[in-house]
């Protein structure tokens, strides 16, 4: 009896997912375990969004098929099938949007420190829409007649204009933050070049001339933001993102030019 109790106390249980099987040779690990890398939440949320979007596309194809059958036959059965497919597709769409907004909000964290006020403003807006889509996940399945469904769709179409504006404005703000951070890095580097004792003092006047292009970068970034702040029509979304993207690309081109100029200056005046 005592032997049985001692056996139970000092033996370790064999787990189903035991990583060290008894048949494997036991070796002392000699390598130093590397520190756990910081999890990239954006990539995880992005994968989840792509998964949800794939489900939405399948549901949408099913809805289109049911709608086509209903348009052809017009029976009560086909109408019910089309209604159910609509509910299913809208729910899948809401899930996809919720996942996308979560990933977008997480993405904004990357360069938030450059412009915390505006970035947080967009993150709050995104959170609001995330909550709305979360709420609709329980609202939409409870709709049980065509009239309520049509009312919900009309309401969503009005909200969708604002949602798109929030999304695209956030994307612009995120890229503006990145370019602004790069500009700050370049300006910091310019100061380092000026004060570096290994670089001749003649370089200082050349570094100072780069301020003109820095102003051009700032102007392009401001223009990119300004496109998103124009008021939208009530019935149709005016997509400003392509125009903003052009300004952002222009700003990035200026940054590349400034960086290349700085490299030339350093190479010319550096005395090892």
């Amino acid at each position, binding site marked *: 009896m005592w032997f049985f109790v001692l056996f139970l106390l000092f033996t370790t249980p064999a787990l189903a997912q035991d990583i060290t099987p008894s048949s494997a040779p036991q070796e002392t690990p000699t390598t130093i375990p590397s520190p756990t890398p910081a999890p990239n939440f954006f990539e995880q949320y*992005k994968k989840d*969004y792509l998964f949800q*979007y794939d489900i*939405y596309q399948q549901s*949408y194809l099913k*809805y289109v098929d049911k709608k086509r059958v209903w348009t052809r036959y017009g029976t009560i059965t086909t109408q019910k099938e089309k209604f159910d497919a*609509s*509910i299913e*597709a*809208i729910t899948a*769409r809401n899930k*996809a*949007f919720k996942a*996308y907004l979560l*990933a*977008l909000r997480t*993405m904004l964290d990357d360069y938030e420190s450059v412009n915390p006020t505006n970035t947080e403003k967009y993150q709050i807006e995104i959170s609001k829409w995330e909550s709305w889509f979360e709420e609709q996940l329980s609202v939409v399945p409870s709709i049980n007649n065509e009239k309520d*469904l*049509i009312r*919900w*769709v009309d309401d*969503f*179409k009005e909200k*969708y204009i604002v949602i*798109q504006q929030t*999304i*695209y404005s956030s*994307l612009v703000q*995120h*890229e503006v933050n*990145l370019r602004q*951070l*790069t500009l700050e*890095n*370049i300006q*910091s*580097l310019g100061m*380092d*070049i000026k004060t*570096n004792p*290994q*670089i001749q003092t003649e370089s200082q006047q050349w570094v100072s001339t780069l301020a003109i292009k820095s102003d051009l970068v700032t102007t392009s970034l401001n223009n990119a933001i300004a496109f998103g702040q124009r008021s939208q029509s009530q019935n149709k979304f005016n997509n400003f993102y392509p125009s903003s993207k052009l300004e952002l690309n222009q700003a*990035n081109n200026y*940054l*590349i030019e400034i*960086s290349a100029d*700085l*490299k030339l200056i*350093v*190479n010319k005046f*550096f005395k*090892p």
Partner: protein
Amino acid sequence: MDNPYQNPDLEVRNPFADSVVPEPQSPNTPTAAKPNNKNFSIPKDPKIKILIILVVIIAVLSVLSFIITIFRKSQLKPVIVEPTPIIETTPVPTETPALTMPAEINAKFEKIDQNTRTNIQFDPPQIDPDIGL
């Protein structure tokens, strides 16, 4: 002045015929060109001159091209295609030489280059807002 008529059936010569003095031909009077192969002269009309010059040039070029063609045909020989030689030397790396600059500055440049290469691409979902209508 007309010549007095001399009847050929009469033996008596027309007295007036002797008194007629033939007029000398003026040098400007046009005369029919006599064909003379030995003394060929170049026509004075400039258009014809140019035409003749062009004809001569064409003829010379034709003769030259004919001679060159015959010459080149005689030079043609069957060409033996040799295999492409394989370069046995070690290829020279094409990387740009490293820039000479302090290490800390180089690290900052790499960070800046990485940022400028970053392309943000996270488009929103493309959806149909009319589902249910």
